[in-house]
């Protein structure tokens, strides 16, 4: 289609969708209303299982199957991206001899922040059931924190300290742990992903049963998944070259 025809088709459709959408939005409940049926059900359910971060309780306990699916989408996306970014038949990994210079100030800050970021990431993962955060958020912090090695050091150093195949295994192990915890619930309580671990005392680190364990599993999966993903992109940008 010509550019003009495309726009005509789009505007005809877009106008209709916009009218429908506006009419629908006008009929939505008022902002800040007091009627929240799902909140009224899920907050007591979360508190009853010592999980003060209600969002985590919904994600990892009340609707844990959704989260298993979402985590699997991430796994599939990483594996898929890795498959698409693999070196093709006429490409090869080749490291450049010369790498750029890094400013001293960047180095200093990078090496100082590296342990801080990793500890922060681990903290966000392990306290997911208590405070905002959890395996997904903490996992991303951990994975990006690791790449301070690249920012402050060099690509060679990152490659040495980040063996991709280990992370691929850890990714599989993290995703597998979620499934295994699901099976534990099935065999102990007769229901897949049932929260069968001890719920503990509200506010303790080791409380809320499998919400804590699932957060750690997801944290491992997300960390390794993002590392693998970035590794593939970095390789495409820095070391994969066409060979004639």
């Amino acid at each position, binding site marked *: *289609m010509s550019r003009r025809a*495309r*726009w005509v*088709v*789009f505007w*005809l*459709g*877009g106008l*209709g*969708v916009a009218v*429908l959408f506006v*009419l*629908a939005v006008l*009929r*939505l*409940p008022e902002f800040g209303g007091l009627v*929240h*049926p*799902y909140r009224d*059900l899920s907050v007591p*359910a979360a508190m009853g299982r010592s999980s003060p971060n209600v969002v985590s309780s919904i994600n990892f306990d*009340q*609707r*844990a*199957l*959704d989260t*298993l*699916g979402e985590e699997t*989408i991430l*796994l*599939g*996306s990483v*594996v*898929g*991206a*890795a*498959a*698409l970014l693999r070196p093709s*038949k*006429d490409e090869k990994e080749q490291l450049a001899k010369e790498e750029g210079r890094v400013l001293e100030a960047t180095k200093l800050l990078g090496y100082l922040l590296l342990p801080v970021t990793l500890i922060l990431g681990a903290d966000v993962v392990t306290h997911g059931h208590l405070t905002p955060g959890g395996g997904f958020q903490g996992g991303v912090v951990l994975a990006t924190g690791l790449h301070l090695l690249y920012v402050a050091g060099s690509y060679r150093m990152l490659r040495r300290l980040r063996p991709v*195949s280990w992370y*691929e*295994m850890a990714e*599989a*192990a993290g*995703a*597998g742990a979620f*499934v*295994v915890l*699901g*099976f534990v*619930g*099935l065999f102990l*309580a*007769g*229901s*897949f*992903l*049932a*929260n069968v671990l001890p719920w503990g005392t509200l506010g303790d680190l080791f409380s809320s049963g499998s919400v804590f364990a699932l957060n750690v599993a997801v944290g491992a999966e997300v960390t390794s998944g993002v590392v693998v993903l970035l590794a593939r992109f970095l390789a495409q940008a820095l070391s994969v070259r066409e060979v004639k």
Partner: protein
Amino acid sequence: MDPSWLPPLGIAIPLAGACVVLALAKFVPRLVVDIVAMVTAVVAVGAMSMLLAFTAAGRVVTWVGGWTPDHGVGIVLAADPIGAGFALLACVLTACALIYTWRYFDDAEAHVHVLILLFMAGMVGFSLTADLFDLFVFLELMSATAYALTGHKIEEPRSVQGGFTFGVVTSLGAYFSLAGIGILYARTGQLGMPQIGTALAGHGMDALVLAALVLVLTGLLVKAAVVPFHFWLADAHAVAPTPVCVLFSGVMAPLGLYGVLRVTTTVFGGVLPAASAHGTFVVLGIATAVVGAVLCLMQRHLKRMLAYSTIAHLGLFLIAMATLTASGVAGAVVYVFGHAGVKGALFLMVGVLLARKGNVDEFALFCEGRDERLTKWLLPLGALALAGLPPFGTGLGKAISEESTESVALTALFVLVSAATGGAVLRASLRIHFGLGPPPDDTDRDTTKGEGEEQEGRFPNRVPATMVAAIAVLLTGGLLVGVVPQVAEAMGVGAQRFLDRNGFIAQAMHGVAAAPVGGIETAWTWSGVALGLLSAVLAVAIGFVGVHFGLGRLRGALKAPLHVVHRLHSGHVGDYAAWLVLGMTAVGALFVIT
């Protein structure tokens, strides 16, 4: 064992298998990877067969994580014979794709196996869930893995382009679906289908419900490749590895229709007048069937031809489902099962041609297949089965569907569309394997040639037994669907359960046991056999006429309109997105005026 264990197991088994394959991939030989993946698929087939057997007595309802309905927060899975049937179909086709893959990707890494197993988990979850948000999650799982599988041949720009187009259009549709789920949540405060359905029925129809309906259906209609949401399908099928095409055509696209029907009946069944749903879906179905059949006849790229034939058949399934009667739904499902076997076998045979000749172009392969012992006889047989030759499952599904429409015009449409798709494939087969007709010579710039596709595997001497086995299993399966009466009977019971909205809500929410249902008429009838034979005869006629008079003359007569149709399928992702938005408006308008 408690039957309520089986639905979550259907999701968990492939996930566990995928994790094992991914963890082992770097350390074990290829054979171990193949075996682990195959065992996983076979175990899943076993679990889903058991589930299907249990659903005969009523739905199998599972509250995941033990969050029983009195908590009000959990996710419910509800398997009826149709949902369990689709889950089983997904597992069986995955097993066939894996057998075929055994030798197919000779340089493949374990990535393909992991992605195929995750894809299977997504399809099983999609079939079994009764939670609207969960449906969306599994829709996305199917999509994310499918994009990567489509673009797998990274050396080819066209392959990456096909995966990209598929990704953009499907994601766009899915975002609209998510927006619709958000609107429904704002109105009802619920995410489960029975819960939303109950809450909506108490409130009545208004602009918000209509908007939510159109938005939620958009993502599903894209998956189901209903016109004008269909553009991605042929581009993706043309470039995807052949075993992946079997899954796309056989079960993924029909699952889109399954989702449309599930959402329309369960979530919106209490507020949407049946006449409105019927009218909308019949119009969409007719458009899809006609566009698919016409484009199928115009193709010379064999995988594109089969892809457009899938679109045509999806249109027919939609017309049958639109009756919203037990016989229409049962007919559509039997048709889907039969079609999955036949179309899967046809795709794999084209895959064999591609592996042997490095080409899937009808013209370039002219006379090239005279010595192909396998495809020479099975490809024409598959083409006739595609047209609905009794006693194949396609024929039975078509017969039940035709009768359910209670309309002469729609029955004629079924006959003509199925004959056109079978005829197109037969024409190609007659040229390739028997060298009939003059050497085709066509200079039409519009048509995509099939010469640039990357050769998949190289087997100059003998086709590997694994490939032959996969083809045989699929074609036999397509036959058995029509021959074994229990299949159609089970789906007859399933269709009644599927449409029993009140029974569904009562069983899922309150544990009320399902009331027994009587069977419906799903056996072969004389008129069904006659119409199936008529389609097959017409397909033969189309095949022979097509060979002798060629595309050139037909095109000459219809040059201008066909040129427009071809140009619309431009491969430009912006065009596809524009049509998607226009399609949403059209669907909304259809719901209003019908």
